[in-house]
């Protein structure tokens, strides 16, 4: 039997079959194209094509003033907008040595964790859809809708908030914010329970996901996976614990760890993270101090001192990093983003090797990429 390669199959015959998946395939959650080299039903190799959603965000940042760049960061990972705003604001704050008031830090953490819940809910919904379950997606979208209703009441927009400012927030939260969030958490918990009960240990769902695309801890580290994909392989690494930022060191939460590193672990870990996020929000609400959220900068044009910073944070999809260079003018000299989706996507080739075509959809789904962030 001849060696299987890109050009020959198991019997040494040339492979004629090139399967084109995407860019409009519904399972790609965006516009992502995979060229699959298949030997029968087995995937031999894959060539991913990205860039269909490329907007040149990093280049655009160089032409915008510092406060205008927040709107661009909103549009990078468009499912976790608050997390993206936070990382950019932290970069500029570190560059300028700005103090952020306690209250704004807590409100930021609350909103970011709620956004993490919303993002993971969307993941559960699409994961179910990828595996063929329609009902959980309805429950999850209902829960996500509730969270977005809160975001609208707080920031005025459901997705592109533009709410965080350097050293503070745009305005204080509404008066009934705390009771509203508490009420929301109860509902979100019930929604998660419901979809968890329906989907997680469903026999068909288990059969589709268990043991698919196993990543060992070494492989996961080698490929630079971060976030839930890395933790599913059993590596205890969370930026919120490893290098606590904001007020995360004052909050008590666990980091769920997977056992096998297969697709089901990646799925179930996110379900567990929702419960941990709920815990974080509850504690942050209890500790929420009174005070001002106004930035000390006022409304003048921002000109940070020349210099460069790198900050990192834990996004729903993994570790995001922002490398910001300032030359002392009113616009950033360079903004480089280390997007978690893009780096996680690099492991796709390894995961898809020797898998069935039918599993391709769930493997890509379990990576949970957002193409807005991959292509930027």
């Amino acid at each position, binding site marked *: 039997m001849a060696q299987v390669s890109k050009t020959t199959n198991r019997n040494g015959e040339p492979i004629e079959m090139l399967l084109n998946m995407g860019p409009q395939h519904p399972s790609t959650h965006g516009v992502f194209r995979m060229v699959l080299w298949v030997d029968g039903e087995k995937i031999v190799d894959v060539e991913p094509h990205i860039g269909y959603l490329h907007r040149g965000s990093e280049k655009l940042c160089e032409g*915008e*003033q510092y*406060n*205008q760049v927040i*709107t*661009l960061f909103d549009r990078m990972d468009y499912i976790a907008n608050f997390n993206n705003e936070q990382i950019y604001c932290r970069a500029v704050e570190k560059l300028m040595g700005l103090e952020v008031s306690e209250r704004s830090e807590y409100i930021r953490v609350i909103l970011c964790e709620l956004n993490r819940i919303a993002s993971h809910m969307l993941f559960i919904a699409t994961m179910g859809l990828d595996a063929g379950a329609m*009902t959980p997606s309805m429950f999850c979208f*209902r829960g996500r809708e509730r969270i977005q*209703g809160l975001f*609208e*009441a*707080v*920031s*005025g*927009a459901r997705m*592109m908030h*533009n709410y965080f400012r350097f050293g503070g927030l*745009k305005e204080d939260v*509404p008066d009934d914010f705390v009771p509203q969030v508490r009420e929301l958490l109860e509902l979100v918990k019930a929604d998660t329970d*419901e979809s968890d*009960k*329906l989907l997680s240990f*469903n*026999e*068909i769902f288990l059969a589709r996901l268990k043991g698919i695309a196993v990543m060992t801890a070494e492989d996961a580290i080698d490929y630079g996976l971060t976030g839930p994909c890395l933790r599913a392989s059993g590596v205890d690494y969370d930026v919120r614990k490893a290098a606590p930022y904001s007020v995360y060191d004052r909050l008590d939460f666990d980091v769920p760890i997977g056992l096998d590193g297969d697709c089901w672990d990646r799925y179930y870990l996110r379900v567990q993270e929702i419960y941990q996020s709920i815990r974080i929000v509850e504690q942050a609400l209890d500790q929420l101090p009174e005070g001002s959220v106004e930035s000390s900068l006022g*409304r003048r044009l921002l000109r940070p001192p020349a210099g460069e910073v790198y900050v990192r944070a834990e996004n729903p999809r993994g570790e995001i990093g922002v490398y910001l260079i300032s030359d002392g003018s009113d616009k950033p000299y360079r903004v480089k983003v280390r997007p978690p989706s893009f780096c996680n996507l690099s492991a796709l080739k390894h995961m898809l090797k020797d898998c069935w075509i039918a599993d391709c959809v769930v493997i890509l789904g379990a990576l949970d990429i957002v193409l807005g962030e991959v292509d930027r």
Partner: protein
Amino acid sequence: MFNSLKGLVVTLVSTMHGLRAPVTRQYPSTGNLLKRHDEPTPVKDRFMGFPALTWDETVGEPYCTSCMVCIRGCPTQCMSAVMKDNPLFIEEKSTRRKIVDTFEINLNRCILCGICVEVCNFDAIVMTHEHEMSTYNRNGDRVDLSALLEIGQKHQKATDWIPPTKRVKAVTGGDTGTGPAAAEAESK
């Protein structure tokens, strides 16, 4: 076999739960399938819809003086404005030396970020609750001054709008002057 039956039961229970009143809404009316209201789906108080210009009732002119601050602050360059001498200032009816002559916002370019409202020193621009403004032409969403003022006035009436600079004064307990006196204080 047993597992499949268990799965069936779980699904059945979920279905029974789902038989409660539906949570989805028929756009644009509110309510559920059984009880329907015909007004559009309400938005929250802070909702940021398309921007529009405000109208100063006490003087009878727009707040906007075409100072170009919002235009320079806009991330997408969706606005343009032209300034003129204020005829009411010459008649000493207004404290604004300059006033807006033409103002245009291309709502297709606008990303609803609210930066223009934040930087405005004259309370002249607001994020309205307007969000259903599709047209069939590419340039159909380029709104001019009169249309902007119309949308803005509608928003002012609907929400009992108070100029933000005066809102701050009311909170701090300072003198909340009205009309030309306050406008004079602002211009100084």
